């Protein structure tokens, strides 16, 4: 059956059907609609005022690739090198090609430089215990955000944008419910954080674009990006949420956006919300406890007890606080001396 006419220009053949509204559009009209919607998100949410210097978290993947050329403000690309062999080096090559193509300044910050030699591969070796999960995403997520902040400061940015799309937000809300993370549920759902206590304001302009549309946009605009998944991704809990999301999307195409809508409207008890953040006693970054999570994780790694900061209570750290009652004392993972 021949493809229908494009619903907007009525001239070209339709190339795709948008998941949310079901409208059939040709490539050019779709790209125009997509760009208009992203712009609308940014403008309506007043996310990036004019004159802002914006650090774009560029991973080389499709989301950050789509993001970069669309915002008409001063952009700097910041790429983070987590030190994952066989993955990040290839992705960085894609980032360098993109920077050359759009003539944007690129800064690469590496974990090895920022965090005292700890690459993700070293962390993985350190946390690998007998049968326990390596919790790589826990470390990588926290450290990457710290690295992005550092990179942004290096280039003198006033805002940070990342390419999280609607699928990411939907997976996040599913995950947070499954893991019982009421604090994150209470915090999340908005279009980014306004930037409290010295942290740069962050936003996610692609938040309301579903992943399918991002991929199609990258395809129609012939963007060059890197699409293999991280080496450590199969171990992540997010995989369950992602699998569920794909199934839901097959049953109902608008499921992703329905989840984002739900996430925006969750009402949690005030007691569940995290306390107002202060400053980390070591590095001065935003922290809800005496030590920010990045410093706490690094502390544990450096002491040879990588799981120190993971889990309730964070016992053994240099911060005040008695161990919680009712928590059975569990022996930490067998200490593995990190090998470089």
């Amino acid at each position, binding site marked *: 059956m021949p493809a229908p006419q494009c619903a907007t220009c009525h001239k070209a053949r339709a190339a795709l059907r948008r998941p949310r509204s079901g409208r059939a559009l040709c490539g050019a009209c779709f790209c125009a609609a997509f760009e208009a919607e992203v712009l609308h998100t940014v403008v309506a949410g007043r996310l990036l005022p004019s004159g802002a210097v914006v650090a774009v978290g560029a991973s080389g993947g499709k989301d950050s690739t789509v993001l970069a050329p669309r915002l008409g403000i001063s952009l700097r690309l910041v790429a983070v090198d987590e030190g994952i062999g066989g993955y990040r080096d290839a992705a960085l090559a894609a980032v360098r090609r993109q920077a050359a193509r759009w003539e944007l300044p690129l800064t690469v910050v590496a974990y090895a430089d920022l965090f005292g030699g700890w690459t993700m591969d070293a962390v993985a070796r350190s946390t690998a215990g007998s049968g326990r999960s390596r919790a790589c995403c826990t470390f990588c997520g926290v450290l990457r955000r710290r690295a992005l902040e550092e990179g942004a400061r290096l280039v003198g940015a006033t805002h940070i944008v990342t390419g999280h799309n609607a699928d990411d937000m939907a997976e996040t809300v599913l995950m947070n419910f499954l893991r*019982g993370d*009421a604090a994150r549920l209470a915090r999340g759902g908005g279009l980014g954080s306004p930037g409290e206590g010295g942290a740069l304001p962050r936003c996610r302009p692609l938040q309301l674009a579903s992943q399918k549309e991002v991929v199609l946009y990258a395809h129609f605009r012939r963007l060059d990006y890197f699409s293999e998944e991280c080496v450590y991704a199969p171990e992540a809990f997010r995989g369950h949420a992602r699998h569920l999301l794909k199934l839901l999307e097959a049953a109902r195409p608008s499921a992703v956006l329905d989840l984002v809508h739900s*996430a925006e409207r*969750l009402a949690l*008890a005030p007691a569940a919300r995290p306390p107002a953040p202060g400053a980390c006693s070591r590095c001065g970054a935003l922290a809800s406890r005496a030590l920010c999570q990045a410093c706490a994780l690094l502390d544990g790694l450096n002491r040879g007890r990588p799981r120190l900061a993971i889990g309730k209570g964070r016992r053994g750290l240099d911060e005040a606080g008695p161990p919680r009652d009712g928590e059975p004392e569990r022996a930490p993972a067998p200490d593995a001396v990190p090998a470089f």
Partner: protein
Amino acid sequence: MCQVGEDYAEPASEEPPPRQPGREQKCVKCKEGLPVVVIRAGDAFCRDCFKAFYIHKFRAVLGKNRLIFPGEKVLLAWSGGPSSSSMVWQVLEGLSRESAKRLRFVPGIVCIDEGAACGLSPEARAKALAEMKLILQTVGFPWHVVALEEVFDLPPSVLRCFAQEPVGTEGAYKAAVDSFLQQQHVLGAEGAGDSPSLAQGEEQLSWPCTQDPQNPQSPDRPPTAAQTEALSRLFDSVKTLTAKEELLQALRTHLILHVARTHGYSKVMTGDSCTRLAIKLMTSLALGRGAFLAWDTGFSDERHGDVVVVRPMREHTLKEVAFYNHLFAVPSVFTPALDTKAPEKASIHRLMEAFMLRLQDQFPSTVSTVYRTSEKLVKAPRDGCAAGPPGPRCLLCMCALDIDTADSATAFGAQTPLHLSQTQPPTPPPTAPCCSAGMGRVQGCCGGARPCEREDPRARVIEQLCYGCRVNMKDLGLHRAADPGVPG
């Protein structure tokens, strides 16, 4: 790794828990009896301790929330399934105990016959009904069996939210209990209890076992074939199983509430178990009902105003319910539902159920984690704006609308394919007689109407729906209004 902030000492799925239940293991509670069932993570209970634990949970949920006042009429929604059967049994047992611990409300049972929506043959429906009546007669409460077809006869007033009665304070509850006990004492001394609400003596209660004589509809009158066919057509016109399930739930709720209002019940009890509520929470998330999770899965649901829906089984897992029913011979009736034998990917509900149960296998605390998170949800209006008049309510689900023009997600592209600016008839056509009279007549009346007339009532309906109901509406057929009770 499943729970945030928790570190599992043993790996999630690879190895079994280190403590193997041996033959010499005793009940963890009384340390004497031989365990017959394992609850939660390795707690083995003997038969008597399990029964006590189960009953205690039921009473504790009721007692903790203090919503059910003594002498109140409470309608038990019984589907025939294990959870609601267990609930009915708990109420039955609770009413026949010694006076100090006796439950103090006046129960009735309602059972909705959904055979037409599920496509059952009349013989199968009659058979199921007969089994149900047998059990209903054994239980002995006043019962009402209502066919789903009667939803066509509902007056439009069911969609109006009645003024909410102010929730009693702590003192009010205690005062009510004290005065009730005093009345009991007086009546007991006089030796007569002729008022129906205080008809509880020391001996077994004798309830009227048929319909209330004032009710013109007798339970034995079967629905007409035309109504059955209209209902089947309605459900067949819905394109996806997800929307069918949601429609069925909405119709069922409205029907139960109508029965409750007609017969003077102020509370409705549903038998949703912990597992079902966890699944329901995740399903509601995926359907776009994030704003209403506290009402959908909390203990009490007072969005309908005068009748409050409570969920006393919400702390019992399905496993506990199944074991209890098996060990203590609680009767239940199996009737096929809409999604019986449906493939796993057929609807969001089925997907979520399969996902949660599979994840529960791997991470045994999944259901309880989701349940505990659901307890942290509050019934707050949007953006914490508690002041001001209550906003408009959704036509179908009666929750405060969660959409406004500044909405980020809906501003991002069309939510519905209809555009209100397309066709503007000068005066709205008189849709009242056509849409509120029932499905069959809508078909005949609007069938020959011009397209703009047909679209306008639909657009007007859509703008009165919440986000989740709008998405469901998309799956309904174009030439029918969503609900027979649409007010004009």
